[in-house]
């Protein structure tokens, strides 16, 4: 298993190094915040990190991509990717099955090497290293994933593994898909993108499973150009999105001891038919906004649903959001808005506010709202239930918007308005006219 102390220290050192370059680059005078501090915004203190795993198994010799061998195609693409690497990206390369040529499965299945460490890339060195890889041995994808996760270390930002392989894992156990799910559930923000060079069903299924388990993508490589473009795109994506990583939280089954959340994005795991509860304090005059996405990262039944309920501490429902669907999907999402009544009232139902005093004090008193997340995904036969499905929760508290008073300042619009005003004017004119005439007539008579 992963030891926590050394990688973290290296991660912090790497983070500082990355930050330093950025500081120099942008001539910013401020020091970066502590990267490991929980809840600290993942500012640009960490460079995007990508580890590429290249399959060096014997089958990579097969000449079936536009007349070239799989290994040649992969090496050529990786060289082009290295040439186009963004400045700040930390890029590493790991091989699997590239050194042990023997027939002993036990030995062959331990065969994974760090070809180039994750860090600032010397493009020439990295390319030379890639050129030395020869198709050799077995395909231990599972342990290569674990090792790559260690190469990348842990930190507040998302890490990306790009797996280029041509064959199904010949070394299970560990099943690479289980390994991927296990890595994802550790909350280390790991995404595995897989690229398959062979087109058989078993390989495809396995690579799709790995990608789904970690929120990555699967690509079926048919040409050199496609492979190059795709890996470049993935490296760019790592650069664009690595800072967006939710905080890990563990919801409870009752509201009383649920974690209290502040605005931000959280991730959790929820088993089939499990309920997870979180608490958010909402002041009078504020509006709670919450949304949730549940990801089916394994084989699930065709129809599914997700429900997000906001209740008060007494269990009374305040509002609910739900969504349902069927077929292939990556997430089921829904959201709710809720704001307290203007006068801060309506807690006769047993809702406890943070301060018991009402009246003058209730203006600032926060009402606790419980968010209950549940899903109606159903596992297909033989699918393991543990760890639970990934869940992403977004919480925000914004100013409440009172109901509008209607059109502003009594101004009007439309032909009816013109007609009414004209008619009123006409009648008024006639009245005044007659009045004046009558007055003159009376005055004349006297």
């Amino acid at each position, binding site marked *: 298993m992963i030891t926590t102390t050394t990688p973290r220290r290296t991660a912090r050192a790497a983070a500082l190094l990355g930050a330093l370059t950025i500081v120099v680059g942008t001539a910013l005078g401020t020091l970066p915040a502590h990267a490991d501090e929980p809840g600290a915004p993942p500012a640009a203190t960490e460079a995007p990190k990508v580890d590429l795993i290249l399959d060096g198994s014997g089958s990579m010799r097969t000449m079936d991509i536009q007349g070239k061998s799989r290994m040649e195609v992969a090496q050529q693409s990786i060289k082009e990717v290295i040439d186009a690497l963004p400045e700040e990206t930390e890029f590493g390369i790991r091989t699997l099955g590239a050194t042990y040529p023997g027939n002993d499965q036990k030995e062959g299945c331990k065969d994974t090497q760090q070809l180039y460490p994750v860090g600032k890339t010397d493009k020439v060195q990295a390319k030379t290293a890639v050129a030395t890889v020869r198709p050799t041995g077995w395909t231990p994808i599972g342990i290569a994933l674990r090792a790559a996760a260690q190469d990348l270390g842990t930190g507040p930002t998302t890490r990306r593994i790009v797996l280029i392989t041509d064959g199904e894992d010949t070394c299970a156990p560990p099943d690479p898909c289980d390994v991927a799910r296990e890595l994802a559930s550790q909350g280390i923000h790991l995404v595995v993108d897989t690229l398959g060079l062979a087109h058989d069903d078993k390989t495809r299924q396995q690579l799709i499973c790995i990608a789904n388990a970690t929120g990555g993508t699967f690509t079926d490589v048919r040409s050199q150009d496609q492979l190059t473009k795709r890996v470049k795109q993935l490296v760019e994506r790592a650069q664009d999105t690595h800072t967006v990583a939710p905080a890990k939280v563990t919801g409870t089954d009752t509201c009383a001891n649920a974690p209290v959340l502040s605005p931000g994005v959280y991730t959790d795991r929820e088993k089939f038919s499990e309920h997870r509860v979180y608490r958010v304090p909402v002041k009078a005059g504020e509006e709670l906004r919450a949304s949730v996405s549940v990801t089916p990262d394994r084989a699930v039944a065709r129809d599914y649903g997700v429900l997000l309920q906001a209740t008060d501490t007494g269990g009374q429902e305040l509002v609910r959001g739900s969504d349902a669907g069927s077929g292939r999907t990556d997430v089921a999402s829904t959201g709710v808005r809720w704001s307290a009544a203007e006068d801060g009232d309506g807690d006769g139902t047993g809702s406890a506010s943070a301060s018991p005093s009402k009246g003058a004090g209730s203006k600032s008193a926060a009402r606790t709202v419980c968010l209950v997340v549940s899903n109606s995904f159903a596992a297909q036969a033989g699918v393991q239930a543990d760890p639970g499905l990934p869940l992403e929760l977004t919480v925000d508290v914004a100013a409440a918007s009172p109901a509008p008073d209607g059109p502003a300042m009594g101004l009007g619009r439309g032909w009816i308005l013109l007609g009414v005003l004209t008619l009123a004017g006409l009648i008024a004119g006639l009245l005044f006219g007659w009045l*004046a005439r009558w007055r003159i007539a009376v005055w004349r008579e006297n």
Partner: protein
Amino acid sequence: MRKLRTAAAAAAAFTGLLLLAPTSASAASPSASPSASGTAKPVVNSVGTSFLTATTLASGQDADVPVSTGDYLYWAFPAAEGQTATVQVKVTLPDAADRHGAQTWTVELFDGLRRRQSCTAGPQNGTAEQSAATLELSCTLRQIRSWAEPWSGDPLPGTYYVRLSTTDIPQTDLGLASTVHVHVATKGGADDAQPEGGSLKAPLVPPVNAGATAAPSAAAPSPSASATYAAAPAEEETHWYSDLFSGWNTRWWWTVAGGVLAALAGVLGYTLTRHPRGHRHHPHRPAPVPHQAPPGQPRQDSWQ
């Protein structure tokens, strides 16, 4: 009578002028959509793979991205009140020779709270036969409202997410290279946003920063200043008079025109009762004396 006619004509002309004016006024109003026409924006070549990592598109901007079939593709765009957004998607499918069956693509829209939003127009999903080369989809959102009750699911100003996915496909066809082209267009502006006078204090723009949990006993965590947010619609400028004055809108012109018409009608009514001189009693003028014919010719030759 002539005086009246000229007055009426002047009134009509004035009213017409007033009613014509709004078109130019609304075009110049600060809340008008920043999108619409204007210079072409650069084409985006990236796409996100989740709500959190969605690539932001400005309104009117295009995205052109090579993807793997089966990816879940996310873009985000901001929409302001009164706007109606349309998302158009064109998928260039993988080589027909590599495919094994029909595939269905679906475009879905979600609001900033990840609530599914209905499409009012457009084929939201389409099935491409094995031989088809391209597939076109589109989805038109409902008009963005200026305000809605918290319990409703109406579209409100804020971030909107586009999700493009392959909802039905033979597993053997997953991962093949395809290209997607996405165009987001918005039309309309704040002038016709409903309900009138309504406003959402904070647009539905989700935070994207990692959250922080507080100790259960601690006071309510204040919305941290460090919160970062997804794509937001352009803020309207606020002035010291913003609370008193709701801004220029066509109601002003209608109301002013109504006032003018009422005033003119009042003058007209008054004049009608006063009987223009010349048609009323004329005491100083002697009554016309009828020409008196001699009462019968005295027969002078009565002697006859």
